[in-house]
């Protein structure tokens, strides 16, 4: 277990020009009764992944508002993380062969971590299935335990869910990213959207020359339309489907496709998917398959800002924060109607939804033919993110939940 350093802070007042001074005052108002009260956030990784990214931005802001907040990371051996990865995939609906030893390993590491982790905070927010078993070590009836589940539980493997169901009903509340991810539970279930930080390197404004420099580095022509999907090389992100859609569009428009994701070198499945994409892209110099370094927020930012249209043609999706990232940059987005994407893409208002390769291609052709509509969707998408998917909104929801849980019944 390691207590994390609170990351370098961006003062809350810096958000005023972005979200409005009234919204910042509102956060201070809501936080006032929570000043000095203790909160612990517990997850299973300090770096990489959306949860760590959100906590990195959320904690300094909550601390500035006076909350006594800390972030703890559960530790475990390779065996633990192999088990929890298989649980994760099984909860997403992947095939899973139930083995009793898996549950024993999970319980053993839960015990070990419970001995070291401070579990006496007034509000304990436990992220995802890995640390969910810690509820068994709740120290008093007075504090409040919240299970924040970031994954799609709409079609979970029964064996894994039944195991987790030993723990989840003992929490005071559960929080999901979409109503369809929720389960039938005897505790209140709330909807929190994941969030992006408008002032982070991945989302802040960039100088035009930097964007052009990134395009030149990857040999992308800034004078022709650029279609982009930012995703890891994963079959559920359907990179080959993206290429097929591009090829249909290409019959009508002289455009380019950028498929950019993290390096697939240490991920056997990712390497295989990248190879499939390379085969599908063979012979077309206007398809750029980019393996970005593990953490390249400025490059991702630049590629999104340079795009004419951003795609997210996922077959399954948790929430898909890359959609919010693109909308924040006022980009027209064409995305699959799966997971949390329809929450972000209100069809014909903040983007266009599709259900197939052909549908994706049609929506892209429509937007390339109607730049004024593309522009309106981008503007409205930006407003949608500003109202609902920024880190400050996420913070507001946590403050509200803490106030609600601690209010006298």
């Amino acid at each position, binding site marked *: 277990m390691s207590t994390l350093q609170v990351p370098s802070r961006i003062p809350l007042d810096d958000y005023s020009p972005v979200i409005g001074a*009234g919204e910042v005052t509102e956060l201070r108002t809501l936080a006032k009764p929570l000043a000095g009260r203790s909160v612990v956030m517990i997850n299973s990784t300090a770096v990489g992944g959306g949860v760590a990214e959100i906590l990195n931005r959320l904690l300094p802001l909550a601390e500035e508002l006076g909350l006594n907040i800390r972030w703890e990371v559960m530790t475990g051996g390779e065996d633990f993380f192999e088990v929890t990865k298989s649980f994760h995939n099984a909860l997403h609906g992947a095939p899973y062969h139930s083995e009793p030893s898996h549950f024993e390993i999970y319980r053993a590491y839960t015990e070990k971590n419970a001995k070291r982790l401070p579990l006496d905070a007034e509000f304990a927010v436990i992220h995802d299935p890995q640390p969910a078993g810690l509820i068994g070590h709740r120290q008093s009836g007075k504090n409040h335990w919240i299970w924040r589940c970031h994954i799609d539980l709409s079609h979970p493997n029964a064996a894994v869910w039944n195991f987790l169901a030993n723990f989840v009903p003992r929490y005071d509340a559960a929080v999901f990213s979409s109503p369809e991810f*929720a389960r039938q539970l005897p505790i209140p279930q*709330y909807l929190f959207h994941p969030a992006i930080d408008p002032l982070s390197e991945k989302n802040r404004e960039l100088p035009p020359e930097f964007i052009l420099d990134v395009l030149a580095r990857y040999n992308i022509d800034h004078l022709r339309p650029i279609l982009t999907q930012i995703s890891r090389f994963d079959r559920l992100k359907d990179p080959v489907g993206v290429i097929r859609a591009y090829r249909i569009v290409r019959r009508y428009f002289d455009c380019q496709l950028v498929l950019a994701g993290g390096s697939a070198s240490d991920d056997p499945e990712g390497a295989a998917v990248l190879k499939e994409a390379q085969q599908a892209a063979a012979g077309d110099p206007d398809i750029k398959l980019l393996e970005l370094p593990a953490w390249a927020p400025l490059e991702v930012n630049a590629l999104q800002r340079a795009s004419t249209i951003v795609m997210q043609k996922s077959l399954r999706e948790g929430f898909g924060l890359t959609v919010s990232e693109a909308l924040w940059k006022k980009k027209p987005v064409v995305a699959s109607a799966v997971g949390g994407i329809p929450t972000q893409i209100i069809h014909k208002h903040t983007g266009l939804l599709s259900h197939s390769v052909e549908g994706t291609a049609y929506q892209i052709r429509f937007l390339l033919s109607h730049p004024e509509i593309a522009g309106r969707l981008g503007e409205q998408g930006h407003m949608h993110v500003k109202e609902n998917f920024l880190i400050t909104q996420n913070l507001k929801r946590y403050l509200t939940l803490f106030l*609600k849980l601690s209010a006298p019944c």
Partner: protein
Amino acid sequence: MNAAETPFEFFTVSYLTKIGNQSAGNLEELLTGLEQCSDASIFHHTFQTLSAHHFLTEGFSNDFAQWALVDANRDALAEQFAALDIRDYTSIAALREDLCRVLRDFITENPAFGQQEALDRFYFCESVEVTAPFSLTATNLDQFRDGMGAISHASFHFHFVTSRLRLQLRTNDFSYWLADSLGLTNLAETINRIDIYTNTLDSARSKMLRLLDRERRKHEHSASPQPNPA
């Protein structure tokens, strides 16, 4: 300028979205849900969603209309849902009654559509409200104007839109106070006519601020010393 005996106290509000246990995959299931869901759920999918999507000034009215349009593919029903103006309602019961009536009539006229599967399910959620005083009060027009300029979107929506349910009147907190405490009935009525469906919360507030500034100028003008005819 008049000072009010009862100050206007600005509040802010924050909502948690509570996920309900009901969902609907077709119009008949939506009707059952509408009949059985909590008042907090009707509020969430109408009053609250309008605030969350205030930046859409055309074609978005409430979650039921949006679902009917996009997921159930029933344009005519969507239009009828969208035509229900929440400002006409001072109770959730009356709004629920009209939502059910619209849907019941549609299914009666189009029985083939009642059980037709929608693209995606409708999930009933509820709004759970937490309010807090903004530490801003006003006893005169100047202070009120300052407060109006400093509050959040949620606070503005709370006082301007959802106040109808609290007051059980077809007005809003701002207009009620301006008329009742400062006697500014014309200003109160003009403010109450600002259309929240065709304005964003920002543009509605800007219009209100302009009206307040005009009123203040009027008072300044009438209070300034008149030139001596001699």
